[in-house]
């Protein structure tokens, strides 16, 4: 039985009238949003995540994102299959990722680039914005 992903509650109430987040506060909010979307869609979140931004680029790194099944497949020498599947997951979540980053930064995402590394288990979500976040 499939369940509809739950809405992301954190930062849901932010509006355009709120003061724009900046610096570490923005990084923390982006991390929470991306991890929340991951958790909603995949049933578990990463063991750790961090975000940093520089000018118009936002980078989110997540560690230990693979499920037990993916780890088992990876150990059997099929890491490429796991990478491909994770790439599909990330494409599926792309719209929500972009919407969250646009809401939090007040900027449009002009490019979303996602990548994975199997061992060590790290995923990266990169967002290229149409300008630096308003608060910075």
């Amino acid at each position: 039985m499939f369940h509809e992903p739950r809405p992301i509650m954190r930062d849901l109430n932010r509006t355009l009238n709120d003061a724009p987040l900046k610096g570490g506060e923005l990084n923390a909010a982006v991390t929470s949003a991306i991890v929340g979307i991951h958790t909603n869609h995949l049933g578990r979140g990463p063991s750790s995540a961090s975000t940093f931004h520089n000018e118009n680029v936002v980078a989110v790194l997540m560690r230990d994102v693979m499920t037990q099944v993916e780890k088992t497949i990876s150990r059997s020498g099929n890491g490429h299959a796991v990478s491909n599947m994770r790439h599909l997951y990330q494409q599926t979540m792309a719209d929500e990722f972009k919407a969250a980053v646009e809401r939090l930064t007040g900027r449009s995402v002009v490019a979303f680039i996602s990548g994975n590394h199997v061992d060590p288990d790290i995923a990266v979500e990169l967002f290229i914005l149409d300008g630096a976040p308003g608060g910075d």
Partner: protein
Amino acid sequence: MAIAEQVPLKGGELNQALGSAVVGIYRVYLGRGPSSASTFHNDDVVVVVVRGVMSHAEKTLAHSGSGDDVTNMRQLLQQTMEADFRSAVERLTGRGVIAFISGDHVDPDIAVETFVLDGPI
């Protein structure tokens, strides 16, 4: 002995050296470099963003609706350059690269090379 081996680079100087190294490797392998590149690092992560990387032929394919094929080909090219990328980043940062994650975006034409190091720079 290179200057980078004598005095560790840091801050913007390191970013500039990393960007130059990655662009140089692009040029060697692909015959041309990106139109622009920017690099930044935070703790144990280095991000290099390059723009204008596609050849005329790749742009033609992308415009004809074969963007996925172009992305796949660029992934293969980036994998081919990976050893040189890692080597350059390790030499300049003095750290080991434990993960190299590369990605592409067709329109706008942007590629990103992300290096996760074995410790902060």
